[in-house]
Every structure is written in C-alpha cells, then in structure tokens.
C-alpha cells in the first residue's frame, strides 16, 4: 500500500514529467488511460470512492442488461437481431460448458456466463475511445482468476475428497516418474491463477498501450497517415483479441472446472 505523502509526491512527479516530455515535442502517455481516478473531485481513491472503474463497470452492466434482458423482452419465437445475439451468446457458453465439463458441469453455467459476459463486455466497452478498460487491471483479473481457482479447488475436494489429489498423481506414468510428475503438476496447478489473470490483463493493457503509442506518433505530420493506418490495424486486432481473451478465460475456467469434477487423468 502506498502512503499518503508518497501519492502526493507521485502526482508532483507526473506533472513534472508532463512538462518534460512536452518540451521534447512528442507526447507519450500510453499508460495514462489506465489510471484509476475519482469521477467527482480530486481526492484520494478509497475503497468505496466512485471512480472511473465504477463508471465503466456500470456501463458494462448496462450493456449486458441491454443485450440479455431488454433484447429478449419480447421472448419472440422468431428472434429480433438483438435477441439472436443474446441467444447466440447463451448457446455459445452453454455448449462450451457442456462440451468441456460434461452434463454435471451445466449447473455452474450461470457463474461461467457471468464471467464471460463481464469480460467480453468490459473488453469491448474498453475499446471505445476515451474509455477505461477495467479488464486491463491485474487487480480485476486476479480477483476473477483467484475466485475461479479457489472455487475449483474447494469444489474438487468437496466432490471427490482426497481423490482430488489424483489430479497430481499421473497413474499412467511409470512409478519412478510419478513423484517428479506430481511436483510438476502441483507447480503448474498453482501457476494457473497467475497465468489465467496475467494473460487477460496483459493482452488488454498491451494492445491499448500500443494504440496510444501510435497515436502519439500522429503528432508528427509526416508520420501521421502511417500512424492512423497503424492505429486502425491495431484496433482491428484488438477487437479480435478482446473476444478471444474473453473466450480463452472462459474456456480455461471450464477446463479447471472439469478437473475439479473429474480429477482422474
């Protein structure tokens, strides 16, 4: 935790660095878009402060509400466009859960759907110019990854008891190799939440930062057209990445859940 004087000093440093870079001509602030700041006033960011995080998570909720509740309010047998997108999302995740975890995993479908809808909407909403990408923060993705990790681990022990440890004991390998494999398996198991969270946050952060860097180059007239082309290309890539990362996070959650429900190799 950063102390109060430290924060004050940091703000001072930021101001100073701004002045410094403006002198140089090119202005690069690729990381400024990720700064968490209060929406009202300029006070410190406390736990319950209403910040841009609140705003953009609220917009994410509204987006999900609009798609899945307002879009389906007519319950039409022949769906409207919005309703078919909602149904598509439902069918996509439902089938994923069913295919990966099996029939007994379907009762966890609402939780996985919640994760997917949040990530995919936060990613896409974060692509709007001037927006704030909540999923680019490790704090957000780490909480989700840890939640998945803890839930899956607890569920594994509740459902299978000590049998869950069979996940680490590769019974198909030669006996001599098994302890080594078990060690590797255990390490890889505990690395899961780390890779799970950093993959999403890293992808979102990197893409957005790269766009910002290209945008900084647009200040030079000679490079500006190239810069705009590069921004457009990166943006297209980011749209793809936004969906793919949401998909990857969700399917990995399903895979971990499958391990908890059926730990045998």
């Amino acid at each position: 935790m950063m102390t109060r004087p430290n924060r004050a000093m940091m703000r001072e440093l930021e101001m100073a660095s701004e002045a410094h870079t403006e002198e140089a001509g090119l202005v690069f602030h690729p990381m400024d878009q990720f700064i968490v700041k209060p929406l009202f006033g300029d006070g410190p960011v406390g736990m319950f402060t209403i910040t841009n995080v609140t705003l953009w998570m609220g917009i994410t909720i509204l987006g999900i509400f609009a798609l899945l509740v307002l879009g389906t309010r007519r319950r039409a047998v022949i769906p409207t466009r919005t309703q078919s997108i909602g149904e598509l999302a439902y069918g996509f995740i439902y089938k994923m859960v069913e295919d990966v975890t099996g029939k007994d995993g379907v009762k966890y479908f609402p939780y996985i759907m919640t994760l997917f809808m949040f990530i995919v909407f936060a990613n896409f909403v974060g692509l709007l110019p001037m927006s704030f990408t909540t999923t680019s923060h490790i704090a957000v993705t780490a909480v989700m990854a840890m939640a998945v990790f803890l839930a899956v681990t607890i569920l594994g022990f509740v459902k299978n008891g000590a049998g869950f440890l069979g996940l680490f004991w590769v019974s198909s390998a030669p006996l001599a190799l098994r302890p080594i494999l078990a060690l590797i398996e255990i390490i890889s198991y505990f690395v899961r939440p780390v890779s799970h969270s950093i993959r999403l946050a890293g992808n979102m952060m990197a893409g957005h930062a790269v766009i910002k860097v290209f945008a900084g180059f647009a200040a030079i007239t000679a490079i500006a057209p190239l810069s705009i082309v590069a921004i457009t290309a990166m943006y297209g890539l980011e749209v793809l990445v936004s969906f793919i990362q949401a998909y990857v996070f969700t399917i990995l959650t399903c895979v971990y859940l499958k391990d908890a429900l059926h730990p045998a190799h």
Partner: protein
Amino acid sequence: MATETHEATTHSAATDGAAAATTHDAGHAAADAAHGAADAGPGMPQLDFSTFGNQIFWLLVTLVVIYIILSRFALPRIAAVLAERQGTITNDIAAAEDLKAKAVEAEAAYNQALADARVEASNIVAAAKADIQAELDQAIAKADTEIAAKSAEGEKAIAEIRATATAAVKTVSKDVAKELITSMGATADAKTVTAAVTARMKG
C-alpha cells in the same frame, strides 16, 4: 516505487556529489526519475496498489449484479425462449408429418373416387346406350308398321283409281266409236258398238 526512489537518490547524488541537495535539485531529480519510470514501466497504474481496494470492491459489486441479472432474468428467459422454439419446431415438424399423411390419404381417396366415378360413368353410358337403342328399335318398328299401313292404303287407292280409269275409258271409247260411226253417216247400233269396244278392250 523502490526503483524510483533508488534512481532518484543515485541521480541526485551523481549531479550534486553532495548529500545536501537543494529543493530545486530534488525536484529535477524526481522529474527525471518519473520520466525514467514512465519509460521503463514501474509507472504502470496497474501496480498502484492504493487503487486495488477500490477496483476489487467495484468488481465484486459488478459481478454480483451481473450474476443476479443473469440468473434471475436473462438466463431463464433465454432458456424458455429456446425451449419454446425447440418445442414449436418439433410440433411443426409433427404437424407437417401429420398433414403429409393426410395429403397422401386424401390423394388415395381422390384416386379411389375418380376410379369409382369412371366405372359409374361407363355404367351410365352403357345404360343410356341400351335405353336409346330400345327406344330406337321401338320407334323403327312403329315407323315400319306405319309405313306398311300407308303403302297398303296407297295401293288400295291406286287400284281404285285404276278401276275408275278403266270404266271411264270404256265409256269414252263407246262414245267416241258411236260418234265416229255417226259422223261417217251410218247409224250406230249401241249394242254392237258396246260389244265391239268391250272386245277391243279385252284384246
């Protein structure tokens, strides 16, 4: 933060070479440090732990709200719609099968009716033909009798006319002969003339 402070101290130490740095120098060094930080990455807002509590709190609120929205409203509704659609499709397929069977049935019935109608029609035609034939025969027979009667009548009339004509010829012949004889200057004996004419007519 650790790197920043470290860099700041080394920088200020290098420039001034003394521990007693003025406020201006400290500010300059700090600016440099911040600049270096922005380039190297420790300035990542993602690693500003002071905002973690805030983000985690709002994330949990958001996830709970989304979960409630999904599990209470969205998912049951979409599931119901999908089930209903599946049901409708199944029903429609069943109804279509039903209608198809009915259509096949109707076609068979139609063909049967057509065949029946044909048979009936040919029967009716045959019956009509027989009736007409009978009527025709009857009419022909009637006509024949009438014709026979008429021709008999005619023949009778002809015979009568012929008889009358013969008698008239005899009278005319007698009269002509008498007149001829009278015009030749002789007196005609009626009896003789009649006998002669009768003989001539026979001959």
